């Protein structure tokens, strides 16, 4: 089962932040689609919930230095 989630991040203001978050997500197992939205400071992901949890995704994003404010 594929799950879709949107994470609201703290304000993303540098373009290279996007590359970094994308780089971090790329290496996650079970992730199918991901998109980092610059202006709205959101991360959209589609992932397999049997392999990956949204907490793991948040941890990964926070590890590269960005705070996740909320998820929906």
């Amino acid at each position: 089962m594929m799950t879709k989630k949107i994470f609201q991040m703290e304000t993303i203001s540098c373009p290279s932040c996007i590359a970094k978050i994308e780089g971090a997500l790329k290496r996650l197992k079970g992730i199918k689609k991901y998109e980092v939205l610059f202006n709205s400071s959101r991360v959209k992901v589609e992932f397999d919930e049997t392999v990956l949890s949204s907490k793991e995704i948040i941890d990964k994003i926070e590890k590269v230095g960005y705070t996740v404010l909320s998820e929906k």
Partner: protein
Amino acid sequence: MQKIIFKNKNIITVISATLISLSFMGHWILKDNFYSEFMLIIASVIGVLPIAIQAYQALKVKVVSIDVLVTIAVVAAFAIRNFEESAIVTFLFLFGSYLEKRTLNKTRKAIKELTEMAPETALKLTEDNKYIEVGIEEVTVGDMILVKTGAKVPVDGIVISGEGSVNEASITGESLPVSKSVDSKVYAGTILDNGTIAVNADRVGVDTTFGKIIELVVEAQDSKSEAERFIDRFSKYYTPLVLLVAFFVWLFTRNIELAITILVLGCPGALVIGVPVSNVAGIGNGARHGILLKGSEVIGYFSKVDTIIFDKTGTVTIGKPVVSETIYYGEKKESDLLYLASIERESDHPLANAILESIPLKNYIKVDKTEVIKGKGISAAINDDQILVGNYSLMKEYGINVTEEMIDDIERLELQGNSIVITVINNDIKIIVGVKDQIRDKVKEDIELLKRLKVKNLVMLSGDNQGTVDLVSKELDLTESHGNMLPEEKAEFVENRIENDEIVAFVGDGVNDSPSLALAHVGIAMGSGTDVAIETSDVVLMNSNFSKLPHALALTKATARNMKQNIVIALAVVFILVLGVMFSNIVSMSVGMLVHEASILVVILNGMRLLRFNMK
């Protein structure tokens, strides 16, 4: 540790600035080089910390980010004991990103204001019959909600009790208060100016009209055009390439200073940020003016539009026709009017509504054997009388005798822009009614503005008779107009113009014209907050406000221009800096960083101009 450093990035920037100025004071006043160098070393070390951590995180996920380039440059400058450069570069980089964040937030402000207008709490009726305040996420469909004076309506729903007046600016763009009483529909995000109402929730959260509008705009600001996707791909390879070039320059020239200068110059900031900044500011301006633009692709097409095709009814005209003339033939009988009204009552055609409104009756008689003849009218029976109500082609179909006098009347009415409704009782024409739709206020001026904005073809399509269409077209000075068209013929017309290599925008009410709206490069819906309009189109003019159209077009033109300016600025800066490095020695690492950061600020400030854009 990392978090503390990031949290205090601003303080680090200030400390770094202080140390650098202390160092220069030490150099010039105390003439103490040891002291001033010491200050610079501390400034470099604390300044590079947040940058280096970001660089490390980027490298861990195999991304060569700007932070990586800057960190290498600073470390190398440090290694060759050029402490002045390393300190100043780190300071400029930190200060630059602080300013970037500040100004970027300003460009995003318009859209943020919109999302912050979303209601957060509601007074919900509980089981023990009391209203208590709850978070909006706890409200579900069917809940009873109390709204007090000055509060935001938290849901879409129907007023069950009470009355008041509501400011619906957030939905319609119109700030005149609208009065609401029992059975009125109210929308989430609107504000109750006075009174108290109890509302039954029909839709909550993102399902409300306001929720949908917000989602749409939030999504739009990040939608990317082909050009932007190209820049994104390009910048992924660009930074590693710069690193490589700098390395080879060092390898062959053994000139570390030159190599690290190249690293700093290579940062692609302005190019990557320029287009999104214009995009978000342009869409933000639109949102403030009641114009929803669904993304940068739409901006690209709309700014280059050749042909704007309007639907007549509901777009150019108000869409609420009124009876302008009623002509009787033979003996004038009250019962004829009663027949006409009774039959029209069976229909929901706009012309029928107009006629009903013109005949003030309380009681109607029973109608039998009603049959709708599509596009022509109705045939029915009342008591023993055979009755036809419809247009001229219905007369032809039934072989009704139309006299010279009647034909003259019909032609005159049509010339004046009326649609014709003929009533036949037992094969004799008894009544001819002319019904006319009003042209919206100021449409003529708006069309004139569109022409000045270099739209080549302004075309009107309508299902009405050609006479009516020609009349409106002439009054508005349109370039083309076609009557007697069915919705699918309109869509075909749009398709033909697209095949003719024109960039086509279609303006319609979003309900009947969805095929045309979807086909056109830019589908513009006159939406009074209806969901269909919001979903099927590329641009929504809130509150069906035609006069927003010229502003929308001018805004997309300004936004497209702004994007180009930003790309040019970004490329020119890099070009000049590269020339500067190759042919002179003015461009040092810190000058490079200064120009780089300045160029980012220039493109952001340039984008910000769009927020204030106004046509007049």
